[in-house]
Structures are given as C-alpha cells and as structure tokens.
C-alpha cells in the first residue's frame, strides 16, 4: 500500500514529463507558447506597454486553468485580470521575471517552443517545490538538456500572423551511457509584411544546453539561449481613423519613403541568457536544486519625434475630420465643409493617412538649426544575475518540506539616443519642451548641465549619441521561502511563508537643468522588507470529489518601475512609497470520474497601498507629466468554471468560463511632476470604479476535441465581454473635474467620466492536424490552426483613453473653451485580428 502511494507521489512529481508526451498537452504547450505571444507582439512597442501582456498559465488538474492560457490569448486574457507581474516564470528554479517591471518578457523564450514543454505549473494555492507561488500562477520550465525528448525535429510553418514564415530545428540527445546529454535548437521567424500593414518581423532563437549526470546523484547542466529580434509595431488608433481607412488594422506608425514602407517604431531586442544548474539527489527523499542565472538584455525601441513642429503622426488629432466639426453638434456649413475636406484627404489615398517620410526629410534638409523631425531610440540595457536554491525533503510520503532561497541583482541602464536625423544636419541635447517657458539662456532648459559648453550652449548630438536622459536603476533582492505540505487523512494541506528584502536606488548620468542638485549621481537608497504567508488545503470528500480552500496574505514591494517619481529627470522616489498589501482567498470544488472532470471555484483578491506609474502629455499644464498613483485599493473577484467531458474515447466536450470583476475601490492620490517645471502637484484622482483594462472580465468557451487515428480536430467557440480600456488619470483629477464643472448638483460630489470599453463578441477558433507514424519510427505531423474563423473583426482586444483634454485652459488654469475634437470620445483601440492561421509541417526523427 505504502509502495503504491510512494509510486503515486513520485508519479505525480514527474507527471509534467508524462503529460508532455500526451498528445493533447503537446498541442497545448505548443499553442500556448505561440498564441500567447504572437497576438500581442505587434502591440508591444515600449516597455510601458507591457500592460498588454498575457499570463502564462496552465494546469494539470484544473479544467478551467488548463485551458484559459492558450484558448483566450487572442484577446489577451489575463488570469483573474491580474497584472502580468503577479504571474511568475521560472527556469530551473530561477526567477525569470524582469526585476524592474516585475513582468516576464515572453520574447526571452520566444521561438523555443520545443524546449518549453517541460513545465511545472502551480496555480495560486497549489503546492509546488520551486517557489512560494504567486497569485496569478507560477510556472517552472525545465531547461536541462537531459530533460528534452531525444531525437531531432524539423518543422516549417507558414502563417499570416505577425510573422509569415517559421523554420525550426531542434536536436536532443537524451542521456548517453556516460551520463551526458546535449540539446540544441534554432528557430527563425520572419515576415516582410506581417498581418498588420507596415509591420515586419525578424527573429532568430537559439538554444544550447549540455548536462552531465553522475551516479552519485549529482547533475550539472548548463543552458544558454537567446532570441535576437527585430520587429516593427502597430499603433492603436481611434474608431474614426479605422472607419476612414476602412481597415481595422490601420497602423499610423508607418509611411512611405521613396515608395518603400518604413515603420517609425522598430524594436530590437536581444537578451542572451545562461543558466547553470546543479541538481543533487541527496537521497531518495531529498533533492537540492541550485541554479545560477545571468542575463544581459539589450532592448531598443525607436519613435518618431518632433522639435517645435506639429506632430507628424498621421492620426494626430488636428488631422482628423472631427477636429473641425462635431457631427453631433450644431450645424455649421463652414465647419462641415472643413470636415469634408479632411475626410476626403484621408480617404483619397493611402499615403495621406500614413507618415510622409519624404516631407520630413525635405523639411529637415531645408532648415538651418536642429532637426525638426528625428527618430529617437529608447534603450534599456539590463544585466540580471541570480542564484536560487531549493531543497525538497519528503519526511514521509505524506510530508514534504520545501525550503528555498533566492538572491538576485539587477542593474539597468535607461537612456535615449538619436537613431536617425532624417536628413537634418544637427541636434542638441536641450529640453525643447522647456524652452519658451524659460529663456534659451536659462540653465533650467538643459538636459545635461555637465556637457554644456563654455557659452552655456547645449551639447551637439549626432546619430548614436545619448540625449534627453541617461540613468541606471539598481536593485538587489533576497528572498527566503518555505512550504510544508502534508497529507492528513482526507486533507492535503500546504502552509507556505516567505520573507524578502529589496534595495533599490537610481544613478543618474545627466545633470538635468530643472533638478541640478538632484539628478546626477546616486539617489538615496530605499529598503523594503516584504513577505507573505498562505495556507491552502484540498479535501478529498469522496472519491472524485475534492474541495479546495486557500487563504493568503502578502506584502509586495513596489517595482522599481513604479518606485521613482520621474526617473528620467531626477533621483526622487515616489512620496509615500509603501509595500502593497495583498489578501487573497480561494474556494473551489472539483469533480472527477472516468469521463468527466469539472471544476468550479471562486476567488477574491484584495490589494491596498498599491502604486502605479505612467507618463503622458497633460494639456491643462501644457507639458509632459510623470504621474504616480498611490494609496490604490483594488479588488479582484470572480467565479471560474471548467468542464471537460469525455463523450467518447475520441471526443471531448469542454466548457470553460469566468465571470469576474477587477476594480479600483477608492479615489487614489495622484502625484505628478510637470516636466517643464521643478514642482510636484498632488491631488485626488477619482479612480473609484475604474476597472482593470486590456483583458476581458467575462469569458466563456464551448469546445469540441476530436482525436482518433492520428487525427486531432479542435473547435472552440469563445465569447468575450467586459473589456475595458486603460483609463486616463488626468481626466479624473479633482482639478479637472472642477474645471469642467463635473459636479452632481444634488450631492455636490464630483462625477468622474465612465471608463471607455471595448466591444466584445464571439470568436471561433479551430485546428486540425494529423500525425503519421512512419515505418522507420519517424513521425510526420501536419497541423493547421485557424483563429477567428468567423472573421469577427469588431472585437477590441485593448487600448487606452486619450489623456488630452476636451477643452483649452487659460494661463491661469481656468476653463477657456471647448475643443471641437473630443478626446474623451476618441479612445485609442486595438482590434483583434481577423481570420488568421498557421499551417505547419513537422518531422520528428
């Protein structure tokens, strides 16, 4: 009896490998990696757009969680609407999440589908032996060379997604008699013209791992991988622009230069990584896994910018017909004629609604002085080093202790360079936004007082030179965690705790004129101690009936990305920076028998003392602002249900769905720095009842899964709703509501505008494949997957409210007059791709 349980426990521990060979899971793992990223990649331009990211989620025993990760990725579904930073990704026990933003950059493992199939997943309250676990799930990929299925694999795929062609080759040797194993792979993804016009894609992924296993229980493995990528991106635009372009994928970021398409926002991303893992099976009850990880990530993203001129973006609001005439307002013939002229211009030629590069070059060549239009590049060069160690000890088959320690250090240099002067002959490192506010001779307008010449003139910068800002954020973290799992009669419970320490500081390399004493050199150091405890248990009520409960509390250190008030300008931390409090609870019921597997559960996450950060142009003060939102209180709660019914041995029927809510509970404090002045303003922002954006809060899916005779066909009908767009803080500042007199006459309270929503709807996805086992033991596989078979292009996958005001203000800050163009009614949106698919042929030998 005990032996059986022992075997069962061991089997459970190794189940991920087992599942990896299961045909269904193979598909899942493959699809998850692919879809999770390909749909969002075009919209991932800059670091701060990472809110569009998806969560990596899977499960071996939860019918809901095992599906949502890949099923809903076309709509960028995030598990429980939580920010991606609560979704942890590990490789060989080492944390891979970016230390600054907290989020995991999927591009780090993009293209490595064949190597990311050995993965342990842990839902928020599931026990695991690699981490404390996170409220949006944790995943631990096994990148050891010896864990890769032996054999060679080659595949060729064609798609009409962000990339059009993909070639892959992998090799894994498995362990030989001497205990050596080698695994290697190369993937190349390419598109000259991606699904969205004006985008291209070029990515090479490589993987190389070697492992040596000794008979004494030690094993050492070294793996290195990277995914150098160059791709161009899609910009969100307004419904008016999409309507005029007659194209839901209108992309304002590209234009014609000499007849060729050129995109202004190109991302270059390369993060070579390496991990050295030492496994020590101390005895058959104890295992120690230690990894040392290093990654140097180089990220660069370009942007077309302008100096003193009008914004050359084709969908700049002054180029839109609705900026001349409000079709819903009073009739005015002159304005209507203007609207018509603008509309005719937009719709007459494609070139009229894209960037006109030829014009930008012409203007630059004919100007004396600094470039009027130029391409700037935002760089993030980041070195991360970490050491993680986890010890698992099974006291008995019923009692397991996991103890772990992680040490990590991260240093990231953020700077801006000139990428292309577009035919101009010069540029200077001066704060052009502040000139005018102050005289040109005033040192306040300099970006770097250290490089100003003897006459007080800003330094001349050329292509490749740094300008604007140049700073480094340094962070060190230490974490200790432990978890105790015990089987106690019908209960299996896990208690876990963690404690961590973070230290962070900024080091500025430019002395900004507005903050001459507080921008160059090291900032003060901020220390945080955080931690958490949680308790989860599952009760095997009766055979097949399991009740699971979980409760947890943790304190979460703010990420370095949100901790500084305006890192581009000075060394200040956000005022009142606090650790975030997170209370989480979950209850679920699972039923499983021979043919039916169902889960239903509810969850509740409550966060307080949250901190968020963003920057945008705020009209009312006529300059760029850096905004910190503090004292945020949020609640995430909902019901999740999943059902997988084996109707016959070759047909499964699946139902999956969630009804959830993710909202801000209070009116937070907004503290913003006006970039042309040295002062900081604090006021209340009416954030109450704003929702998390960019993910559908209601989803449902009905699916059929056919698998017989080497054929596998999937059909899923998915329904998405309650998609909110990212809300604009400045529209809801108390001062803004006062200016616009947005007050309830009866109660005297301010009324904040409702949050913009995106349209949801039905999307049908399917895939069909056949695998042939050839006589020589090799396997040939065909797979054709289509997303959005019904071509429903009307669904919005994400977007943001515009932060500019519907009105102008006087110098004193009072309401002046309304603008014809209503920013509040013109949110920028991304629409989901229409019918798109991939056809792949693979050969395993």
């Amino acid at each position, binding site marked *: 009896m005990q032996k059986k349980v022992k075997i069962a426990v061991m089997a459970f521990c190794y189940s991920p490998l087992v599942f990896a060979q299961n045909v269904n899971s193979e598909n899942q793992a493959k699809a998850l990696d692919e879809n999770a990223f390909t749909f969002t990649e075009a919209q991932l331009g800059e670091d701060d757009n990472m809110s569009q990211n998806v969560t990596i989620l899977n499960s071996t025993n939860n019918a809901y969680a095992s599906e949502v990760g890949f099923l809903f990725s076309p709509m960028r579904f995030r598990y429980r609407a939580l920010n991606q930073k609560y979704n942890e990704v590990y490789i060989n026990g080492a944390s891979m999440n970016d230390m600054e933003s907290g989020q995991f950059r999927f591009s780090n493992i993009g293209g490595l589908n064949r190597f990311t199939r050995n993965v342990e997943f842990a839902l928020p309250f599931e026990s695991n032996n690699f981490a404390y676990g996170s409220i949006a799930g944790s995943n631990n990929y096994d990148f050891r060379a010896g864990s890769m299925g032996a054999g060679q694999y080659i595949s060729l795929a064609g798609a009409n997604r962000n990339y059009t062609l993909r070639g892959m080759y992998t090799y894994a040797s498995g362990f030989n008699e001497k205990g050596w194993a080698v695994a290697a792979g190369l993937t190349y993804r390419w598109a000259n013209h991606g699904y969205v016009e004006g985008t291209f894609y070029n990515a090479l992924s490589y993987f190389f791992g070697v492992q040596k296993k000794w008979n004494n229980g030690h094993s050492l493995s070294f793996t290195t991988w990277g995914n150098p990528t160059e791709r161009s991106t899609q910009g969100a635009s307004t419904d008016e622009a999409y309507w005029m372009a007659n194209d839901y994928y209108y992309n304002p970021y590209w234009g014609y230069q000499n007849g060729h398409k050129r995109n202004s926002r190109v991302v270059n991303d390369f993060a070579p990584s390496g991990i050295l893992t030492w496994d020590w099976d101390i005895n058959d009850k104890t295992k120690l896994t230690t990894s040392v990880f290093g990654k140097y990530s180089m990220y660069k993203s370009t942007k077309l910018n302008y100096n003193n001129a009008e914004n050359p973006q084709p969908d700049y609001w002054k180029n839109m017909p609705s900026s001349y005439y409000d079709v819903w307002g009073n009739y005015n013939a002159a304005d209507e004629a203007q609207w018509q002229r603008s509309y005719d211009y937009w719709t007459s030629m494609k070139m009229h609604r894209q960037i006109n590069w030829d*014009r930008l070059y012409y203007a630059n060549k004919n*100007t004396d002085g600094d470039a009027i239009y130029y391409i700037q590049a935002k760089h993030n060069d980041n070195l991360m080093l970490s050491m993680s160690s986890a010890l698992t000890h099974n006291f008995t088959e019923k009692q397991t202790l996991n103890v772990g320690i992680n040490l990590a250090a991260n240093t990231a240099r953020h700077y801006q360079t000139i990428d292309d002067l577009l035919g101009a002959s010069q540029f200077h490192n001066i704060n052009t936004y502040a000139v005018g506010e102050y*005289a040109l001779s005033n040192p306040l307008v300099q970006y770097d007082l250290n490089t100003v010449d003897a006459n007080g003139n800003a330094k001349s910068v050329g292509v490749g030179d740094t300008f604007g800002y140049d700073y480094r954020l340094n962070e060190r973290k230490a974490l200790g965690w432990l978890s105790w799992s015990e089987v106690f009669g019908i209960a299996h419970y896990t208690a876990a705790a963690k404690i961590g320490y973070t230290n962070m500081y900024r080091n500025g390399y430019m002395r900004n004129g507005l903050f001459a004493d507080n921008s160059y050199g090291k900032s003060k150091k901020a220390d945080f101690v955080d931690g958490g405890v949680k308790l989860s248990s599952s009760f095997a009520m009766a055979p097949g009936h399991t009740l699971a409960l979980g409760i947890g509390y943790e304190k979460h250190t703010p990420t370095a990305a949100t901790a500084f008030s305006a890192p581009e300008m000075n060394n200040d931390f956000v005022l009142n920076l606090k650790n975030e409090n997170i209370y989480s609870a979950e209850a679920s019921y699972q039923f499983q028998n021979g043919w039916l597997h169902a889960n239903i559960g509810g969850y509740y996450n409550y966060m307080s003392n949250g901190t968020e950060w963003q920057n945008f142009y705020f009209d009312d003060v006529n300059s760029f602002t850096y905004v910190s939102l503090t004292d945020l209180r949020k609640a995430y709660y909902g019901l999740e249900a999943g059902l997988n019914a084996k109707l016959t041995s070759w047909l499964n029927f699946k139902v999956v769905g969630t009804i959830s809510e993710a909202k801000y509970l209070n009116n937070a404090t907004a503290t913003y720095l006006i970039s042309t002045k040295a002062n900081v303003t604090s006021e209340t922002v009416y954030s109450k009842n704003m929702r998390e954006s960019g993910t559908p809060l209601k989803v449902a899916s009905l699916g059929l899964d056919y698998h017989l005779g080497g054929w596998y066909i999937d059909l899923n009908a998915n329904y998405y709703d309650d998609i909110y767009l990212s809300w604009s803080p400045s529209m809801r500042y108390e001062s803004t509501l006062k200016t616009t007199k947005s007050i309830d006459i009866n109660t005297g309270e301010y009324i904040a505008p409702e949050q913009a929503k995106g349209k949801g709807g039905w999307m049908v996805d399917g895939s069909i494949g056949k695998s042939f086992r050839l006589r020589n033991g090799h396997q040939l596989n065909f797979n054709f997957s289509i997303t959005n078979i019904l071509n429903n292009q009307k669904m919005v996958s994400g977007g943001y409210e515009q932060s500019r005001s519907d009105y102008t203000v006087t110098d004193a800050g009072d309401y002046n007059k309304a603008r014809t163009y209503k920013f509040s009614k013109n949110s920028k949106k991304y629409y989901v791709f229409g019918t798109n698919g991939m056809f792949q042929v693979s050969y395993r030998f």
Partner: protein
Amino acid sequence: MKKFKYIALGLTGLLFASCMGADYADPDDSIPPYGNNSIIGTNIISIDSLKNINEYANAIDNNGYKLIDQDIQIKGIVTGNDKMGNIYKEISLQDKTGAILIRVNQGGLFATLPVGQEVLINLKDLYIGGYGKQAQLGLLYNGSVGYIDRYSFNKFYRLMGNPDKAKAEALAEEFDLNKVNDETYLKKNAGKLMYIKNVAFSDANGKNTYAPKGSDQSINRGLKNAKTSQNISTSNLVVRTSTYAKFANEVLPSGSVDITGIFTRFNKTFQILLRGTDSTEICPSLKPFLTESFGESQGQFSIDNIALSEGVDHVWAWASAQYGMKASANISKKNYATQSRLVSPAIDLSKAKGATLTFDQAGKFFSTYANDCKVQVSTDLKNWTDLTVSEELTGKNWNFVTTTCDLKPYVGKTIYIGFLYTSTAEAAATWEIKNVTVE
C-alpha cells in the same frame, strides 16, 4: 560588458543587414513633396499692385474680404514664420514691391516655408482682406478672412527652389521713424521685413520680459528714440510679442538697439513682430561707420588730385568749420581744368544690414551739377562707381542741403566714399561738403 554588447548587436545587425529595419535611402528632394508643383506663373503680378487693385484695396481698408477670381499669381520670399512661436499660423510673404500675410491653419509652418523660401502663390479662389487694415490672404470663414485649412493650402502654393535666407535679408528696408504716422507709408510697408535703428525699449529695466504670462495672449512693448530719448507713442509703433513665443520670457535688452522684424499694421499702429531675439534680429545699435563733420580739419579724409592744370596746386581744401571741405578750381577769378577726389578712410560695412551716406553740401557755378560733382563709392580705391544722390544742388544759392545716398548694395564689404570734383577752363564750380556720416 559594453564590448560584448557591441559584438552581440553587431552580430545581430549582420544577420539582419539586408532587412527591412536598417537601410533607408534618402528620398529624392528635387521635386518638393509639399505644395502644388503644377502651378505655373502665367500671370504674376507684384504684391503691391495686388493690394492696389480697387476692390481688393477697399476690402483691405474696410476690414472686409473679396474673392480673387482672376487667374493671377504672386511670387515672393517668405520673410517671417512661426519658427519661434511668435508669428502664429501665418507667414509673411514679400517681393520687391510689398508684402502680405497669408493665414494658414497649421502649426509648424516653418518646416515647409522657412525664411528665404521663394514661393509662387496661385491666387484664384483665395480671399484677400484686411484685419486692422493689414492685408492678408485666406479663405472665407464665418464672414471674414479666416485661415486657409491645411488641405486647401497645399493646392495654392508652389515651392520654388531651395530656401536662401540671404534672399529674405536682401528685402529688408530701413524703417523711417519720421513717417510712422504717414498713411501712405503704412499702406505701402505694412507686412514688410524692415529694421529700425537706434531705438530703446521703454520698459527695459533688466527684469521686464518680452511677453510675461497674464490675462493677455500678446504683449505690446513701447519704444523710444534712443538718440533723442523721446518716447515713440504706442499708438504709432510697438513691438508685439505672443506669450507663446520661445523668447517670451527673455529679458528686454537695455540700451540702444536695432530691431529687425515683420512690420505689420493694426489700423494706425505699426506692430513689429519679432522673428527671434538673436543678434540678427535684435542687436545693440551699431555706431555710425563713419562720422566726419569737417569741423576742425580734413580729418582722416585724403585728397587724390587726379589732374591739375599748370598753376594749380590744390583743389580740395579744408575751408572752415562753417563751410567744411571746399573744392574750387577758380583761382583769382580764372577757371582751370582739374579733377580731384576727396576720399574717405575705409568704411567697414561687414556688419551692416543697410547703410546710408548722409552729407551736407552747398555750391554754385556748376556747368552741370551732375557732371561736375559726383559722389562715388569704391571697394578697391581703383574702380569707382557713381552713387545716386537724393538731392542735386541747383546752384542758385549757398544753402547747405542734406543729401543721402543708399549704400545697401555694399553691405558686407569695406568701401571708400569719394567726392569727385571736375572742372574745365570754362567752368569751375565751388563745392562744399560737411557733416559726412555713414550709418
């Protein structure tokens, strides 16, 4: 670490060298990508004559508007635009005869229409009108001449060649403070690029700025005549600056300055719109390049006796403080044939924007003034060019007449002024010169 990064990026770059990211050939700029390149100047008229066409002149004067339905064009140089944020949503266009403002509803016009850009404007379907009697071109909007929208504007203009700032500077004229009240002067010069010399800001106190923020969007600053210290009435002449100008928060310069700008008008007032505050627009007044009163002696002038008859040993000589330098070849009531030149010292006009020679002259006994007395200029003391004098002496009396000659074409050079006296045996005039200045 940096090296590694460069190597890594280099490898990445190599890999993708052929691809879409990196290589963009510069566009061909021989055909401007702005404007309407099919406009042909079949019927170009001067800006001044455009403003004088009866119905248009009435529209300008009465702050009204008139549609231009004739197939005519004007061609001029852009003299002012929104580069420094002061001349907002309009450009000033000037040809040799006059100037006009063109209003366009677009920011960043300076990118397409930099100062010095020659533009051909097709006038048909544009509206001409006035605002405060300042002539302007635009399109009709709600009953007055409003902005030309950015879409229509593209059809009305054609860029001719590359911009050349010197072309704009060549059109700059000196403002005559004496005519500040003259309606004809206002009409003729409103909208032109001009410069005024030797004025000072009445409000300059080391702290006051051009356009401090307040309830107004533009601020008028008054001037005074720096030579006489007399205030110039602000209903006649002001420097008007927008609070949105890049130099709005710069301190007003103290002392005597020369100001260059677009001299627009608002009814009876000349409003100078600055194009910036660097030394080409506002600079401390240049001292006169030459002043010689001949009150005490010949000064630094030299005499070149080109031809003297037998018995004549001099022509030019210093006479007295009252008469200055006198040239005469009549000795003891006998006329002799001579030719002699009174030559000034070198005059450096390299920093000048414009220059005028002013002198007082008197004389009698000419055979023909124009033959006997020539005012000349030379850059090398060898080749001399005649200058046109503003006044020719009648020879009827001994009154001193203040005379000027324009030296604008010689701006940037070093010159010499020569007063050439010629006499014959039949006629030898007496010519007196004093109070010579070049400024």
